[in-house]
């Protein structure tokens, strides 16, 4: 049944303190190179998926760091783990492993299936 009445619009603000950063912690323990990302977007520019869908690996990195996991969980399915992004990253981030570990963390911590 439709719900009527008032509802509160979810605030746009990133609630840094309320957000859960266990996923990014899990990744950083295993792939510390994620910390080296400078958000230059070169990986996203090179990425075939990113050129056809709303997926940006650069954005995934920053969303993970902010604990915006709901967005990451949906978006990350699109990555093909092809590794093109690794070839261009000026900071030597092991980009593909970040995606791989993110999926692993969502499955381990939340029982989420990809």
């Amino acid at each position, binding site marked *: 049944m439709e719900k009527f009445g008032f509802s509160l619009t979810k605030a746009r603000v990133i609630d840094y303190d309320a957000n859960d950063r266990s996923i990014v912690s899990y990744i950083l323990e295993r792939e510390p190179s994620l910390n080296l990302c*400078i*958000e*230059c*977007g*070169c*990986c*996203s*520019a*090179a990425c075939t998926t*990113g*050129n056809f869908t709303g997926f*940006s690996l*650069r*954005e995934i990195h920053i969303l993970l760091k902010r604990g915006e996991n709901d967005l990451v969980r949906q978006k990350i399915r699109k990555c093909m783990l092809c590794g093109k992004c690794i070839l*261009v*990253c*000026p*900071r*030597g981030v092991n980009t593909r492993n970040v995606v791989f570990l993110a999926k692993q963390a969502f499955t381990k911590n939340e029982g989420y299936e990809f």
Partner: protein
Amino acid sequence: MNPHVIVIGGGTAGMEAAGRLARAGMSVTLIEKGKDLGGHLRDWYHLFPDRRSSDEVLEYLKGQISHQNIRLLTGQQVTGFIHKGNEFTVSTGNGDTINGDALLLATGFDLFKSERKEEYGYGIYENVITSADLEAMFRKKEVKLVSGKKPERIGFLHCVGSRDEKVGNIYCSKLCCVTAVKQAIEVKKIFPASKVFCFYMDMRMGGALYEELYKEAQEKYSVGFIRGKVSEVAVNINNRLVAKVEDTLVGRPLKMELDMLVLMAGMEMSEDAVRLAKETNLQMGENRFFKPADHHFGTNMGNVNGVFYAGACTAPLNITETISHARSAVTEIVNYLNTGRK
């Protein structure tokens, strides 16, 4: 007899230092491998931050070295040196040796070889050029496409060969951001109807009047700035260049057609100086430039007593900094020769 200082490299740093050393009463031999003095300065047109002509600075430097205490050796490359006690013997490519009491290395930098970033198409696509190529065009007053046509849209690509693990250079070359802005303004002056864009990761405008130049580029010349590192450049069927980037502030990939792309090539320790350092056990830092004895108090000294450094052989420096660094080297050398020799 006056103490004898051998200055290696006749660019901005070497010329300024040689002049000052001579005036401080030293006898100086200035050795330059090229046939002319001036180093990279000779290749530039108008200088940031105030767009003074590089020829004017060159004239000043020539004035500095016109002194009876200075002996000039051009067309001779220093290939090594040895020292016994306090005396140095420098050897050059054609087999000569020169003795002196102290050495000043002012060997400068090499421009990053942009062919190494193959994905940007330098040496493959004819209208992909470097910042140095553009300066040469400015000097000849001939900025144009290979076809002879006027460029309508020009891109400047920051950080080519700098801040890039893939080429082994993690450092920032420090003056290519302001060079891009300076050149963008220059291009707009020649082609007021053109549109110019800078593709940058960070705008590093930390120098006297740099930020002002940046603002002027926006205010008077409508230069566009796109934040993202270009991943690759291709040519489309219209024979125009196409740059691919993520417009990170929008969060979407962007492609743009360009007539001309200028690569802001970084500064590297010169290959000659690397060879010289290895030959003579002079230490290089992690960025391969000569390693200073101390980052605060000893940027003119290294690991060998009596060997001094000046200019862009120690780090990417602009001309203002290079001249200051050469002057401080002179102070250190005079001090060493008067009191510091053990």
